[in-house]
Each structure stands twice: as C-alpha cells, then as structure tokens.
C-alpha cells in the first residue's frame, strides 16, 4: 500500500492490505515538511509508528527503521540540516535494521536485535504516554480559566503587640544619666588639699639643712621622716609623700641629695650631700627663688 492510500480519505473500516514500506520519497518529504514541529527523532519515529495505525506494541520496527532512514536520506539529498540526534538515530536504526535482517547468531553479551527493538518500542511507548499526559494535563480545568480564586480576598491581618523589654531600673538609670550629664556641663574640678612640689622643695631643703651632719654628708634618714606630722587628710599625706620623693629626685639630679632603697617596698633613705656651703647655699637659694615665682 502506498502512502497515498494512507493519506486518502479511505474509510477506516476497510481492511488494510498487508503493509508494505510506503513510498520512501513521499513519506520522507512529508516528515521533512513537518520537521520543525518534531521534538527530535523519537518524536518522528512515534509519528511514523502512529501512521502504522496499529497498537504501538504491534508496530513493525523494521518498517519504522526503513521509513526513518529514507527520511534521513531525503534530508541529505535536499541538503537539509538536521540536528545531530536525527543522524545518531539513523545510525542506530541502520545498525538495528541490519541486525534484524541478518540471521540470528550467537553474539555473546550483546543484546539481541529483538531486545534492541523492544527497547526502542518501549522508548516510543513511553514518549507517547508522556505526550498523552501533557494533553491530559492541559485538558484539566485550569486556574484562571476554568477554576477561579476569590476575586477580592479581604486578606488576613496581623495585629502586632509590642512588648517593651524595659524595666524601671532602665528608666531610672536613664534619668541618672541625664542628671550626671547636667552636672558635667558645669563641672567644677574638686579642690584637693595637696602638697605641691614647690612646697615640698622648700620643706625638704629646709629640713635637709637642719639635719645633723657627720663629715661631709648628713645622716641617712627615711623618706617618711620628712613627712609633716599629724596629717589627718589622707590625700594630703599621699601628695606630700609623692611630692617630697619627686623633689628628692630633682635634688639628686642637682647633686645635692642621695637616695637609696634596699629593695622593692623597702624604706627609702635620703641624705643631703653638702659639697660646699657657698655653692650649695647659692643653688638652694636660686631654687627657692624660682619656686617662689
């Protein structure tokens, strides 16, 4: 039977004569016209198989292969560019065709031609099933076309209650901060009753002069013993100590005093170093004048 017969409006109830390969040129050209509409070689094969008008499980793989190969041949005659997969399929079908036509031989592990044909048939059936499923899906009632959501939903509100993680302490602390900041803006330096280094200098030089002497040097005397007596004000006491020690160091630098300490936190001893009465007196006097300024 020719393709013309298949294509004609022949009533379907009429028995088909035994199938022969359709006129290759015609069938191939028909496919080629449509080639952009196909989703690859399996799709083409599926279309060919459908044209056999039999249950897809009953299709003639050999006939299918011949039809497909003539389609490829025709495409090449016409210099049509076909995607690679069409050529791969052609190669595979050519191979399958030769295997199907050759007498059966023992081929070891290789799948038989029959198995390969069944695999192709499965592939075709599966794709057909998927195409049918796509159609079935699209035939379902669709949202926005057949099924609708509420046209104007009121929407669901969210009412947020804010819970403040604030304690009374936080607020009082904040108030305290403001008060203190207020203090800062007119902050008077506290007046401390302290012994200045100037005072310490005059005290120390005076006291050193009064110390008993032995030879060229006065006797070693503890730092504490130069401190004023009966000081109640702790701050004053500490400043006196610091200032006297600082002044002591200054006098050491001037060569008028010697300081020694036997170890950390051990008592500090000082003694005057009277080199010459005239010079020392002069220097001391100068120092005094300067501090008075």
């Amino acid at each position, binding site marked *: 039977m020719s393709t013309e017969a298949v294509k004609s409006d022949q009533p379907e109830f009429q028995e088909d004569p035994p199938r022969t390969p359709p006129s290759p040129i015609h069938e191939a050209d028909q496919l080629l016209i449509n080639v952009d509409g196909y989703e690859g070689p399996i799709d083409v094969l599926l279309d060919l198989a459908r044209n056999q008008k039999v249950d897809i499980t009953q299709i003639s793989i050999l006939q299918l292969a011949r039809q497909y190969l003539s389609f490829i041949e025709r495409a090449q005659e016409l210099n049509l560019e076909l995607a690679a997969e069409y050529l791969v399929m052609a190669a595979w079908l050519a191979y399958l065709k030769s295997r199907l036509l050759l007498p059966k031989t023992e081929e070891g592990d290789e799948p038989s031609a029959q198995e390969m044909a069944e695999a192709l048939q499965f592939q075709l059936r599966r794709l057909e099933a998927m195409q049918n499923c796509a159609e079935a899906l699209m035939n379902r009632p669709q949202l926005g076309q057949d099924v*609708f959501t509420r046209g104007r939903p009121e929407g669901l509100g969210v009412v947020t209650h804010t819970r403040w993680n604030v304690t009374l302490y936080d607020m009082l602390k904040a108030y305290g901060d403001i008060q*203190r900041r207020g203090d800062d803006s007119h902050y008077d330096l506290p007046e401390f009753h302290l012994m200045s280094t100037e005072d310490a200098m005059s005290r120390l030089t005076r006291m050193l002069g009064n110390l008993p002497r032995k030879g060229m040097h006065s006797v070693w005397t503890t730092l504490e013993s130069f401190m004023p007596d009966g000081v109640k004000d702790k701050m004053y006491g500490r400043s006196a100590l610091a200032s006297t020690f600082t002044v002591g160091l200054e006098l050491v630098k001037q060569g008028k005093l010697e300081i020694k300490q036997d170890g950390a936190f051990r008592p500090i001893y000082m003694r005057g170093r009277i080199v010459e009465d005239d010079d020392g007196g002069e220097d001391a006097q100068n120092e005094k004048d300067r501090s008075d300024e």
Partner: protein
Amino acid sequence: MSKEHKRILEALLFASPEALKPQELHERMPDGADVGALLKALQADYAGRGVELMNIDGYWAFRTAEDLGEALNLEKNVHKKMSKAALETLAIVAYHQPVTRAEIENIRGVATHRGTLDALIEAGWVKPGRRRETPGRPLTWVTTTDFLDQFSLSSIMDLPGLDDLKASGLLDRRPAIDTLPAANDLFAQVEREEELAEEPDDENIMEG
C-alpha cells in the same frame, strides 16, 4: 430555580473582583436565570456562616462575617528594646510632668527627634497634657496609666525621688580618686588603686 444556576451565581460572586449589580450578574448568567430569586436563596444559604452574601447599595458580594473581623487577625507579640533617647525622654516626662518638648530638650541637653516622643506615644506611655499658659501655649506631655502598669507603679508619686536615686548610687558622679578606701599603708594600695581607676571607663561603657 435551578440548582445549577445557583452554583454558577455562587462561583461568579466568589470570583469577581468587584461587587456586582443584579443586572451585571444577569448578563453573565445563563439565559432564563432568575437572578433576584437566586441571590435571595444564596443569601439565605450563607446566613450565619463565616462568610455572608452582602447587598451593599444594590451591589452584591461575599464578605467575611463582620463579627469575625477580630478573629481573622493574627495577634503577634514583638519584644523590643527601647532606645536610650526614648528612655531618657520617658524619664524626663515621668519626673518633670507636665513638661513641654522644649523643656525636655533643655534637660536632655540635646534636640529630641520627632520619632522619640512618637515612639513613647505609640507605646502608650506618654500622652499630651494641657497647653502651658505661656507665650506660644506649648503642649505639655504627661505619662499614662499604661506607663504606671509597665513599671508596676501605683502612682507617679511612687517614683524614687532624686535623693533616693542619689542614695542608690544612680546619680553617682564622684571622681574615682575620692572613692579610695582608707588605708594606712599607702604603698600597699597601689594595685587596688589601679583597679578603681578604671571605674570611669566602666561608666562610659554604660552610657554608651
């Protein structure tokens, strides 16, 4: 009155983005549908349900039942911290109320952002008081009952006074050097003194 017609009417009213007039419904319904009777029937079907068919000024639409408005909202609790500026402003309003915005700024020593008072009003802790009868008649601010609730105070008089604050150390502004413990051995105090000298830094951290 066909059941099928009622179904179509129901679906139409449900899916329509606008409320529809009977005339509009009539145009969309199959021929021969008695829209008026169908609307009445549908309204009766939905009476007392969570959704009701409402006739608003001649337009028909489904609406969730009015009494359920509250129930449809999801209540969420959000825990928030208050900004330092807000806390200070709150404290000033609490201690100095009624107090004007200018006075708040004066006490804080910085300009108050608009949002700061707003946040306190939103929190429900501060509300406008009377206008001060001075030039410009500025609005004063006072604290609310919610404010007292938040801090478990029965009245504004329960706020600790300045003296209390001082006594509790909240207003402490003594220089660190003053806070040295009495000690006879000055040299033994060196280490301890160093520790205490860091105190002003700590305070800065708290302020920051």
